[in-house]
């Protein structure tokens, strides 16, 4: 099959289409007497921005949007990102004027509905994670991580052990974990994984010394695996005086199956844009609430929502690490997440994790004869493959397979992550994809496996069907063009 690129070219930037004196708005007339203006030296002398009509703007962004793959348009099995369906009712409710017109500085008594919603969401997230308390104030996963390690630091300081400066992080971890620990002033020590993808317990024991502040662990791991030694891991850290930080990025696999608090975790952050279905927005907004056990409760980032006699109020814990953002959290994202939880209920959430895990395993067994599984055991929410065989045999790399999937209208899986898997392809189908979609995906992957043998150049040159083909990233970094003038 030949590939003819039928895509229309992308539009030129707004500035290159700008026409002097055009405008996309009509402003109301000034309905008050004009006031004296400041002296000209305080005023702006010139301002250059694109000048467009309303239709110019609509057509431009509509065309741009069509150049994106998205959950609404494509199967998007991007591992570790949980690209599940984003229910439309969530967006509609978040856009109620009673939510989205509220000003963050309104007195508590005028926003009782909003505060009640936040309070109930805090409560449900505590119930899901088995933790004691929760703050919704953190604005993204990495932001929640930073809050989490800051709480760990505050805890040790309060106990008179400020010398605890080491954070242990498995080598399979997302890059934000070490970056967050480092932003909090910690030293990062990497813990290797064993051959079957679990944490190396001997290495952990050795690293758990007097300097230990805590361990950051993602459960299930970025390999899609639940570490069966988790209890021992937590005990090892605790007996050395450290705390256990749980990265809840993959909570989707554990909803209703196990609670972090029961396992001995001291703090976890959740990615509501993953687990609770809020739209990823092309790179935000998200929300990364932090849930804590009783030891860390006093340190929660502010504000949290409290309740007294049926009245809700914003409050702050005694030893709070302080506010992490301008206001009270990404409220519009929180509304969507809470609507989602109310739509599913406990049984629904258990089905979410169950079906997410069944789907990932179905892909694992469907492809295991065609691509090498990184760790040959049942997975949870995602299946990690390695293309190293294809690379050695045919010179086809993970990126070539990823790009070839685009020609079949499927968003590539996550590639080259986790770092410990050579030529990694990490596939997370999520529970909202049907068996028919998975069957079609498996067939396409098998077809690609044949293409690798028969027409490898098809993969090397893929994608063939997109408005632009492989882009020169080296040139982008060398000849920087980061804006128009």
């Amino acid at each position, binding site marked *: 099959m030949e590939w003819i690129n039928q895509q229309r070219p992308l539009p030129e930037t707004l500035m290159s289409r700008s026409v002097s004196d055009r405008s996309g708005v009509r*402003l109301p007339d*000034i309905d008050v007497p*004009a006031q004296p203006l400041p002296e000209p030296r*305080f005023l702006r*002398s010139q301002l250059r921005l694109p000048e467009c009509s309303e239709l110019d703007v609509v057509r*431009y*962004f509509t065309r741009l*949007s069509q150049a994106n793959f*998205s959950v609404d348009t494509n199967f998007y099995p991007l591992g570790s990102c949980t690209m599940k369906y984003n229910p439309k009712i969530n967006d509609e*409710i*978040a856009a*109620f004027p*009673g939510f*989205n*017109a509220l000003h*963050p500085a*309104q*007195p508590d008594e*005028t*926003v009782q509905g909003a505060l009640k*919603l936040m309070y109930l969401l805090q409560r449900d997230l505590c119930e899901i994670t088995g933790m004691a308390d929760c703050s919704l104030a953190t604005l993204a996963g990495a932001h929640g*991580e930073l809050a989490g390690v800051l709480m760990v630091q505050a805890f040790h300081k309060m106990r008179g052990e400020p010398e605890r400066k080491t954070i242990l992080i498995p080598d399979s971890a997302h*890059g934000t974990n070490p*970056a967050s620990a*480092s*932003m909090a002033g910690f030293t990062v020590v990497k813990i290797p994984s064993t051959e079957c993808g679990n944490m190396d317990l001997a290495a952990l024991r050795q690293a758990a010394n007097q300097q230990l502040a805590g361990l950051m662990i993602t459960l299930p791991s970025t390999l899609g695996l639940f570490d*069966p030694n988790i209890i021992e891991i937590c005990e090892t850290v605790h007996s050395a005086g450290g705390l256990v930080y749980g990265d809840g990025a993959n909570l989707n696999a554990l909803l209703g199956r*196990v609670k972090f608090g*029961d396992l001995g975790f001291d703090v976890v952050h959740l990615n509501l844009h993953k687990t609770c279905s809020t739209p*990823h*927005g*092309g*790179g*935000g907004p*998200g929300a990364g609430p932090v849930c804590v056990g009783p030891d860390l409760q006093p340190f929660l*980032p502010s504000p949290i929502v409290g309740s007294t006699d049926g009245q809700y109020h914003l409050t702050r814990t005694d030893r709070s690490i*302080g*506010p*992490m*953002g*301008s206001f*009270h959290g*990404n*409220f*519009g994202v929180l*509304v969507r997440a809470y609507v989602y939880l*109310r*739509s599913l*209920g406990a049984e*629904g959430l258990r089905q979410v994790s*169950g079906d997410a895990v069944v789907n990932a395993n179905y892909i694992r*067994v469907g492809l295991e004869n065609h691509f090498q599984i990184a760790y040959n055991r049942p997975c949870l929410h995602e299946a990690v493959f390695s293309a190293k065989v294809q690379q050695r045999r045919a010179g086809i790399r993970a990126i070539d397979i990823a790009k070839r999937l685009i020609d079949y209208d499927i968003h590539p899986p996550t590639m080259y992550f986790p770092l410990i898997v050579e030529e990694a392809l990490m596939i997370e189908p999520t*529970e*909202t994809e*049907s068996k028919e979609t998975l069957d079609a995906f498996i067939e396409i992957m098998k077809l690609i496996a044949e293409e690798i043998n028969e027409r490898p150049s098809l993969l090397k040159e893929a994608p063939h069907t*997109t408005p*632009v083909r492989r*882009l020169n990233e080296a040139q*982008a970094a060398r000849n920087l063009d*980061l804006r128009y003038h």
Partner: protein
Amino acid sequence: MHPFLPTTVTQRQEMLKAIDVPTVDALFSDIPERFRDPQLDLPLPLSELELRREFENLARANTVPGEFACFLGGGAYRHYIPSVVRTLLSRGELATSYTPYQPEVSQGTLQSTYEFQSMICLLTDMEVANAGMYDGATALAEAALMACRITGRRKVIVLRSVNPRYREVVNTYLFPQHIQLISCSNEDLRPDKETACILVQYPNYFGELEDIQDYATTAHSVDALLVSSVDPVALGMFKTPGESGADVVVGECQPLGAALSYGGPYVGLFACRQKYLRQMPGRIVGKTVDVEGRQGFVLTLQTREQHIRREGATSNICTSEALIATAAVAHLACLGPRGLKGVAELCYHKAHYAANLISQIDGYAIAGGDLWFKEFVVICPIAPKKINRILLQNGIIGGIDISSIITNGMLVCVTEMNSRDEIDLLARMLAEACPKN
């Protein structure tokens, strides 16, 4: 069947058979048995119709600006959002895509981000900008950290005229790295050779436009950086910090097309001089060409970032609040240069009209000088809290109570959304709220 979950019972059985496990639960056998399948005490699931009713009730329990006249600002501002902006943002291709790691299928997001970076540079008179930060406060905190990396110094000075919420967030970010944070007023501003940067706000928390050029000179005299947080709407009208010599400009883009939404999601802007580019946090998009020579966009300079550099990254941030940044781009595209200036002038005239009116009421005074934008401090005759209670009974959400900073101070904000009738009503009600002798 739940509408979000398409797998039927029969299909699940087929799939389990293919996987070769007897039950779904068998796939969770790595979880220690005694902790498996805990009780989950959550409210019962609701249908879409029930959800709508439930949340309509919650929304109804709020007092909504728009239905009430609202004079709140302090970092989040009511501005009119053209329906084009809302409509475009609801497109699933923009809302339900991920970070553009696969540029061939993310050109929409990437090109929009390039527009955002360009417009932020034009607006602030800076040389480079990133794809966006979480919000205005975190952008300021990250700018302080960046200044410390650039100068190798560990002292940051923040003016007391910077939004107190922002100052607290800066403290949260600096404290763990043992960077000294000093708050001072403009009279006792004395940076030294240990000072990495001075943080200022333009217009400041009280609405006033301070002399950025003067601060820049002071900062540069000790080789420190000047970081200015801005309200982008003010830049439609007033001289920019870039023109006045600031080295880093950050700020809150919410006033450009994002709903107030009780404080988020918003997007922070982050711009600086070209020479500091490699110390910038966050995503950056660059223009390049594809294998056939066509123009396209990619994420670039990624070696600064956490997914490559891990603990050595300039920041842990991944999110650029891309959808909200897209709103800002669409908003600015609609407004154009004259529209933005027009909005700024509407705010200016209405706010100054309101201040004039209030200054004539017995018992009230306006604090500060003449050079201010859309916010001003009213000195009330009694506690602002009491006055706000009376205003609320009369359909008005009054200004922010800043009596902890200025005795009986109320920070009043007026934008184009406040009609003359609303402003006149505010003045009348303030007069009535003043206790008569």
